[in-house]
């Protein structure tokens, strides 16, 4: 019982370290898209590790924690994808270090094709 609790506490600690690194990424990254990248990944693994730690500390909660983990794995990437797409559609610029933007090129080509049809 004692050892399980100690292992759980260490896993909980490693989860919070990952969440800390994610928030450091939010500060350091140059533009929205890179920030979303840092935020999504770190928060997903950080939350999963925290849940694992809690499950080891109080084993009777494991089923509900597993359910939480599944919902986080399904919903976290979806929300970050929607944020990224919305910010691209709203015209938020990519950072100066960006090397290619195929999505913008695609949208421009589509718009030009639509205008061509109208006139």
């Amino acid at each position, binding site marked *: 019982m004692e050892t399980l609790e100690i292992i759980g506490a260490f896993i909980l600690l490693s989860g919070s370290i990952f969440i800390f690194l994610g928030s450091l990424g939010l500060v350091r990254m140059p533009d929205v898209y890179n920030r979303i*990248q840092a935020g999504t990944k770190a928060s997903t693994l950080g939350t999963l590790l925290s849940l694992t730690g809690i499950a080891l500390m109080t084993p009777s909660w494991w089923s509900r924690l597993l359910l939480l983990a599944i919902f986080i794995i399904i919903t976290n990437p979806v929300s970050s994808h929607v944020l990224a797409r919305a910010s691209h559609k709203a015209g938020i610029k990519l950072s100066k270090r960006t090397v290619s933007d195929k999505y913008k090129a695609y949208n421009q080509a589509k718009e030009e094709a639509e205008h061509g049809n109208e006139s």
Partner: protein
Amino acid sequence: MKLKSFIVSFIILMIVWLLLTSSFDLAYLITGAVVSAILSLLLCKRCTIFKGMKLNPMALVYTIIYLFVFIFELIKSNLDVARRVLSPSLPINPGIVEVKTTLKSPMARMILTNSITLTPGTLTIDMVDDSIFIHWIDVKSTDKTEATEKIVKRFENIISKIYD
């Protein structure tokens, strides 16, 4: 086809119920079964989301393999992000690239794009027909086929075994 989506949604609802109550009392089991059956009957009349799913033992084996690959990639992606964030020069080379997918069913595509978002340095932005637009934190190639090879293939091979 309708029966299959009924069975799949019934099993999913039942598993969620069992995890929530975490008890195998007969009363709980009967309540859960009745409610799941009614819900899947009502909500799954026209649902097509489970259409491409294969229901055979090999699909189950590949699901488990996929889970392990996924968790491994998730940990790798976190170490990768941690390395980039902590190094003083901020070694990023971001850009949006276009890749192709051969998967057809909507559920398989959702799993693929979610996996891409959670794995090293890639973030799905949009999907138009067969093209997926991906924000890549360290662009190695802007060529369509080469990027597809690097980002999509390792997941697509496994997912195509589970879904048509």
